[in-house]
């Protein structure tokens, strides 16, 4: 991809790109990986603990406890987003907070808060799914195609 992009540039632009690349600070890969693993693991651990509470005290089964657990995690991340703490944790943890359902909740809440000044309908309503939208669109489309294929196979067989 990078090579295709380069061909369209003039020689001066190419030189500049290379210069910029040389001065780009290298990403601290190992540190990022460790942080993502640890924070992601801790969030899932917390999820497991919440799930056990739902199973033990609220009569959910192992299969049905997943949904309320996600809802609780979403509530926690929305609160943390609203008070401005989520961004700080997220900056430190990278994908560790972005990949679990907490990242999905954060992207919705932060977009809603950020665009509040443009009004509730066009600002909050219109921008809420600005970042989370692609996830839903591609998830639903993939699920539709897979569901269709599986149904056709079972119907045929």
């Amino acid at each position, binding site marked *: 991809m990078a090579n295709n992009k380069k061909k369209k540039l003039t020689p001066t632009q190419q030189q500049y790109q290379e210069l910029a690349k040389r001065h780009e600070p290298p990403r601290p890969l190992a540190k990022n990986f460790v942080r993502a693993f640890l924070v992601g693991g801790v969030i899932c651990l917390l999820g497991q603990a919440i799930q056990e509470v739902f199973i033990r005290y609220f009569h959910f089964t192992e299969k049905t406890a997943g949904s309320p657990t996600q809802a609780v995690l979403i509530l926690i991340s*929305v609160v943390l987003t609203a008070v401005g703490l989520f961004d700080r944790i997220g900056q430190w943890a990278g994908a560790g907070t972005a990949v679990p*359902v907490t990242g999905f909740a954060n992207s919705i809440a932060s977009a809603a808060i950020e665009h509040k000044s443009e009004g509730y309908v066009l600002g909050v309503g219109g921008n809420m799914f600005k970042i989370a939208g692609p996830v839903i669109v591609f998830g639903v489309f993939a699920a539709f195609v897979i569901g269709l294929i599986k149904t056709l196979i079972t119907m045929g067989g």
Partner: protein
Amino acid sequence: MIFVWAFIVGGIICLIGQILMDVVKLTPAHTMSLLVVAGAILDGFGLYEPLIKFAGAGASVPITSFGNALVHGAMAEAKRDGIIGVVTGIFEVTSAGISAAIVFGFFAALLSRAKG
């Protein structure tokens, strides 16, 4: 024991996300979309449900489980209503997550103000 596996499997899925962002240099939106589609495909082959059984929240909290749940809802309804069920059932399982995110997100917008 399930707590240990929840930590490890959840950590590994987040690590994969970090690798996609840092090494493959995808944007966060591309990374998340890819993970959701991956979860849907894994469930298509019947591989995600065993992972949830094995790792609990380690597999059901990361965004990959969203893809898995979408396929699950579609298949459950398809079994009952035939091919139409694929469309009507897609959001059946994920309803809690999306509703919660919208409701809480809207409350957050009502109650707080953008900083900075």
